[in-house]
């Protein structure tokens, strides 16, 4: 393998060191959502008096804890190329059942464990049909959305079940630890763990692999079906945790909780730059996406718009943000 030395020697290497700009473009999804998040915060800080106050900001993180937790798990699901539409229903079922089991005199730690196990069970059942029976995730979890919500309604008869305000259970939703609301603290712990698992472990790597090329990942000796099953177990458990936190904060379990929650979660994940086609996910992006969704909802209420405006504006903003994301930051990946 020798070549004419003078013609080939001494040419410039075609690769330069990745500059800051290169890296920014490579992480375009995260950068653009960060920018968009900041713009939203600035906008509401200027247009409303109440937005940029410590109580309101803490309120936002407290209220967005369920969204953050489930969006973190949903990032895994969507990165495998799947989707979980049942999270809102699982949230409602676990919220009502945790209230019901406390009413039945079950100790609160047992109730929590039971709810998490229930979420995992839902995930195992859905994951089994998706991973092993190869039914599209959209279909399986759409059926799950309907069935699970139905159970929640059946159990409560449509009423909400109150939780004794003196029960230590409500502390999960209402307590303050070191000046931070407990739900925000729980969400932070979950997000840190999710970030590490997603980026630094074998499981996280195979989640990306399954979404990028499931057959290649299988041929590399990875049990891809188990990976897929697990991501639905994670999202089921995350939805259960969200249901517990919500019930504790509201002091009751309602079978109507979390209507449309799955759409907020998916919007948060997709806003954060995770591709619905799988193979590309970003947990940092998801966190920013979820906070953006929460800030929008909060800011629009503070702007004294009719509350019915919120879904309209949110929907448009999501469309525009993702469109900009596609247009501006397509770099990094090959145009396709």
């Amino acid at each position: 393998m020798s070549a004419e030395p003078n013609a080939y020697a001494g040419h410039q290497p075609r690769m330069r060191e990745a500059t800051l700009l290169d890296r920014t473009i490579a992480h375009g999804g995260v950068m653009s959502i960060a920018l968009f998040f900041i713009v939203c915060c600035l906008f509401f800080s200027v247009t409303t008096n109440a937005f940029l106050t410590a109580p309101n900001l803490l309120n936002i993180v407290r209220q967005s804890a369920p969204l953050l937790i489930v969006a973190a798990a949903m990032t895994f699901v969507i990165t495998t190329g799947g989707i979980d539409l049942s999270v809102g229903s699982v949230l409602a079922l676990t919220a009502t059942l945790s209230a019901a089991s406390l009413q039945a005199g079950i100790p609160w730690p047992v109730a929590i464990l039971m709810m998490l196990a229930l979420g995992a069970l839902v995930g195992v059942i859905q994951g089994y049909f998706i991973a092993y029976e190869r039914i599209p995730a959209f279909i399986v979890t759409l059926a799950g959305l309907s069935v699970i919500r139905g159970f929640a309604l059946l159990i409560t008869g449509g009423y909400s079940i109150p939780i004794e305000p003196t029960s230590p259970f409500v502390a999960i939703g209402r307590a303050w630890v070191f000046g931070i609301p407990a739900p925000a603290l729980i969400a932070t712990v979950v997000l840190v763990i999710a970030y590490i698992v997603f980026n630094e472990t074998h499981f996280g790597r195979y989640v990306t692999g399954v979404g990028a090329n499931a057959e290649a990942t299988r041929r590399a000796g990875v049990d891809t079906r188990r990976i897929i099953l697990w991501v639905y177990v994670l999202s089921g458990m995350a939805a259960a945790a969200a249901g517990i936190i919500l019930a504790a904060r509201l002091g009751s379990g309602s079978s109507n909780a979390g209507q449309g929650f799955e759409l907020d979660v998916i919007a948060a994940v997709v806003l954060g730059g995770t591709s619905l086609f799988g193979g590309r996910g970003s947990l940092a992006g998801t966190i920013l996406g979820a906070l953006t969704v929460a800030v929008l909802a909060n800011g629009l209420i503070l702007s004294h718009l009719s509350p019915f405006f919120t879904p309209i504006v949110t929907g448009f903003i999501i469309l525009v943000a993702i469109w900009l994301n596609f247009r501006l930051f397509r770099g990094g990946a090959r145009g396709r």
Partner: protein
Amino acid sequence: MTDTSVSRVRMTGISKRYGALQSLDNASLDLKPGEVLGLVGDNGAGKSTISKVLSGAVIPDTGTIEIDGRTVSFTSPADARAARIEMVYQDLALCDTIDVAGNLFLGREPKRRLAGVPMLDKTLMHARARDMLSNLGIVIPDTRMKVENLSGGQRQSIAIGRAASFNPSVLIMDEPTAALAVAEVEAVLELIRTVSKRGVSVILITHRLQDLFLVCDRIQVMYEGRNVAERRIEDTNIEEVVNLIVGRKFAARSAGHPAERSVSA
């Protein structure tokens, strides 16, 4: 064959049907330690399918596989990997959104423990990926590049590097040179020679017949899922191989049964 040593691979009676299509029909394959076998045949002859059976990616309907004299049954590619069978797939089987090092180590990423929790050892992975690539003379500027941003030939090199670098005992290459430039093809042929000298058995599938004569010990011809001919490389020439691949088509149509017969030479 008069060779008495135990075969590294012996596949017999392998059949695989996809719906109405009999992809493999009682096919067989024999491979000695250190031997380089050229597998040729028309498009759709079943070359990829029989090699995927050996790599565990396809489970045959019938047939037995023996590795070093022991009967094995691969239920997944992981089993074949454990038996040190590595394959470069025709479609490369790379994950586009994972970086070069991640693809090289896919399925066997080095671990490090952080507070007892197993994690990816990315530093080690990139360092070893750089070594692996430079040992094979593969030029990739940065192991942190995503595979989707590489050229077709570079991607093929990654797939070859992955299969060749983990000390295989059987190396299957399904059209490894299809996208490669002249120098890179030479490097792959050289790689085949080196590893086979070390005792690695190689199956080379290619439509570049001249390459077969540079590295193979033996050629096996497949036609519509069956083995139709086998030649020691010194007993044949390119015209005969061409006729074995193509000529059969016409012979088979009239005869209905492609009995082995010499077409020319």
